[in-house]
C-alpha cells in the first residue's frame, strides 16, 4: 500500500500515539483488503456508542484516546434518550456509563448527535461520488444506494480512526468495480410504504452481502428506499443496492441485467405481515408500538403527526428520530406527544435496553423485525404505520 510522507510519519508515531494507532488500523484494513492507498473522506459516522454493546472495555478505550477528529463526525444511536432516559425506564447506573461514553467522544471533537440517519443533519449532506466512513448498516446502505456516495460498512474503531486521520483505505465500495450489481430482483407487484421493509426482509435473507438491482413495478420514495435498505442490511448484509431507473448510479450507469434473477411475489410480502402476527394467537398482546427505524425523516414525522392529531392513544408508543430533526419539527413533535406517544431521540428500539421491559412489540420496520426478537428477546409483529397506530389504541379526543 502506498503511503505519503505525512502518512509514514503518522505511522511512525511523530504525531502521537492516538494517531499512530488510528493510521495503523487504516493501513492494516487496507492491507487485508488490498487497498492501494488512503483516500480523504468527507465525514464519518461512528458505531460503538451504546453502553449495552461496547461495555466498560469500549468506554476505557475511547477514554484513553487523545486529539481531535479532522472531518465532521457523529455517532450511532446510544442506548437511551440522553435527556429523557428516566421516562424510558433506564437504570441510573446505565445512564451514567452512557453519558461517560458520549463525553469521551465529545472530547475528541465528535458531535454528540446519535443517529442512524446522518444524511438529514446539517454538515452531513453527502453527494454522488463522495467518499465517507460510515458505520451504521442502514446509513451505509442509504449513502451508497440512495445518495450514490461511497462507504464501506466501517466498524466502530475503524470509523473513529478514519475520522481522526481524515482518511480511509481505498477498497471495497470505494471502487467502481465493487459497485456493479450481480443479482437481479424482480418485484412482481406494486408496493407501498412498509411493504418495502417487508421486501428487504425477504430479499436480504437470500442475497447475503451481494449487490442486487431491483426491477420494480412502481417508483419508491426516498423514505421507502430507506426502509428497504435498512431491512436488506439487517436480514442480509447488503451495503449497496440499486433500483432500476430510480437510484442515481442505476440511472447514470445503465447497468446490464445480471444473469441470476430472483422473483418476489405478492404473497411473500403478505407473509411477512401474517407470519409475525401469529404470536398474538399464542396469547401475547402487543404492549409497545415503535416506529422510526431508521430514525424518522421530517416527512415521516409530519405523516405521523397528521394521523395522531386530535387523538389519544392507549398503549406505549415510541416515535424514534434524531434530536436535530425533532428540534426542526417542533410542531409535529408537539402534536405527536399530545396524543400520548413519545418522540424518543438519540436511540431506538433495537439498541436501547428499555425494550427489554416489554413482551410484544409492533413495528413498521423490516430491520426492527429482524433484530428485536433476537437482540432484545421481545416478540415482534409487523404492520404498516396505519396498523401500528390502530394497534396503539387510538381514540378521538372529543
Amino acid at each position, binding site marked *: 500500500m502506498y503511503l505519503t510522507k505525512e502518512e509514514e510519519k503518522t505511522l511512525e508515531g511523530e504525531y502521537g500515539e492516538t494517531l499512530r494507532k488510528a493510521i495503523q*488500523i487504516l493501513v492494516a484494513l487496507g*492491507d487485508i483488503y488490498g487497498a492501494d492507498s488512503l483516500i480523504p473522506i468527507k465525514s464519518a459516522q461512528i458505531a460503538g456508542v451504546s453502553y449495552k454493546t461496547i461495555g466498560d472495555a469500549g468506554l476505557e478505550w475511547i477514554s484513553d484516546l487523545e486529539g481531535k477528529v479532522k472531518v465532521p463526525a457523529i455517532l450511532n444511536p446510544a442506548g437511551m434518550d440522553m435527556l429523557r432516559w428516566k421516562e424510558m425506564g433506564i437504570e441510573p447506573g446505565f445512564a451514567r456509563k452512557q453519558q461517560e461514553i458520549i463525553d469521551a467522544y465529545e472530547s475528541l471533537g465528535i458531535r454528540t448527535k446519535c443517529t442512524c440517519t446522518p444524511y438529514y443533519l446539517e454538515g452531513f449532506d453527502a453527494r454522488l461520488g463522495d467518499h465517507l466512513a460510515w458505520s451504521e448498516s442502514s446509513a451505509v446502505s442509504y449513502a451508497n444506494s440512495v445518495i450514490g456516495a461511497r462507504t464501506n460498512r466501517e466498524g466502530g474503531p475503524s470509523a473513529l480512526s478514519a475520522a481522526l486521520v481524515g482518511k480511509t483505505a481505498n477498497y471495497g465500495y470505494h471502487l467502481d468495480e465493487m459497485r456493479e450489481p450481480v443479482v437481479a430482483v424482480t418485484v412482481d407487484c406494486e408496493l407501498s410504504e412498509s411493504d418495502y421493509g417487508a421486501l428487504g426482509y425477504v430479499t436480504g435473507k437470500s442475497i447475503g452481502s451481494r449487490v442486487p438491482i431491483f426491477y420494480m413495478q412502481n417508483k419508491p420514495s426516498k423514505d421507502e428506499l430507506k426502509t428497504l435498505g435498512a431491512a436488506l442490511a439487517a436480514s442480509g448484509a447488503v451495503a449497496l443496492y440499486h433500483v432500476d431507473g430510480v437510484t442515481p448510479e442505476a440511472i447514470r450507469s445503465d447497468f446490464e441485467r445480471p444473469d441470476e434473477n430472483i422473483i418476489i411475489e405478492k404473497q411473500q410480502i403478505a407473509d411477512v405481515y401474517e407470519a409475525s402476527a401469529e404470536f398474538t394467537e399464542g396469547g401475547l398482546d402487543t404492549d409497545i408500538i415503535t416506529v422510526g427505524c431508521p430514525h424518522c425523516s421530517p416527512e415521516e414525522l409530519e405523516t405521523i403527526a397528521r394521523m395522531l392529531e386530535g387523538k389519544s392513544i392507549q398503549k406505549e408508543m415510541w416515535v424514534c428520530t434524531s434530536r436535530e430533526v425533532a428540534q426542526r419539527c417542533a410542531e409535529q413533535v408537539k402534536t405527536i406527544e399530545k396524543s400520548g406517544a413519545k418522540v424518543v431521540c438519540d436511540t431506538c428500539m433495537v439498541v436501547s435496553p428499555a425494550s427489554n421491559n416489554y413482551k410484544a412489540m409492533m413495528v413498521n420496520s423490516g430491520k426492527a423485525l429482524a433484530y428485536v426478537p433476537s437482540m432484545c428477546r421481545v416478540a415482534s409483529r409487523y404492520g404498516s404505520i396505519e396498523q401500528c397506530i390502530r394497534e396503539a389504541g387510538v381514540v378521538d379526543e372529543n
Partner: protein
Amino acid sequence: MEVSSSVSERQVLSMRIKCRSISRGTAEGEVLLTHDSISFLGNVDPKTGEIVEPEHELFGQCIKDKVLVFPHGKGSTVGSYVLYQLIKNEVAPVAMINIESEPIVAVGAIISGIPLVDKMEKDPFEVLKNGDHVKVDAASGFVETEI
C-alpha cells in the same frame, strides 16, 4: 561467558519465517495453537483469558501470555474491544499469529498493542506446535522459532 554463549547457541538453532505484519510490536512466548477460528466476544472470558466455549478446541485453556496461533477471527465486531479488555485485565496473549487476519482481530490487536502477524511463508500448523518458544517480530515481519 555462559549467558552470551547460550544466546548465540539459540541464534544458531533458530529459524526465521517471514510473515506479514498487521499490528506492530515484538514479543515472545509459548505457542498455543488451535485450528478453530475465535470469536473473542463469547468464546473468551475477558476477566480470566480462558476459552469458555464448550465446542471450541481450546475449551478450558487460558490464552494469557501465550503466542496464540489460530486461523482467523469471527463473530461480533465487539470482539475488538474484548481484546482491549484482556490487555487491561492482564490476561491477553503476548502475540498472535493468524493464517489470514480479518478486521475484528486486526483492529483489536492494534488498539490493544498486541503484536499480530499473518500469512507466514510456512504453514504455522506444520512448523509450530504447542509449547514451542517463539518470537513474533511484527516490526520487521518475521516469526523466529527454535529448531
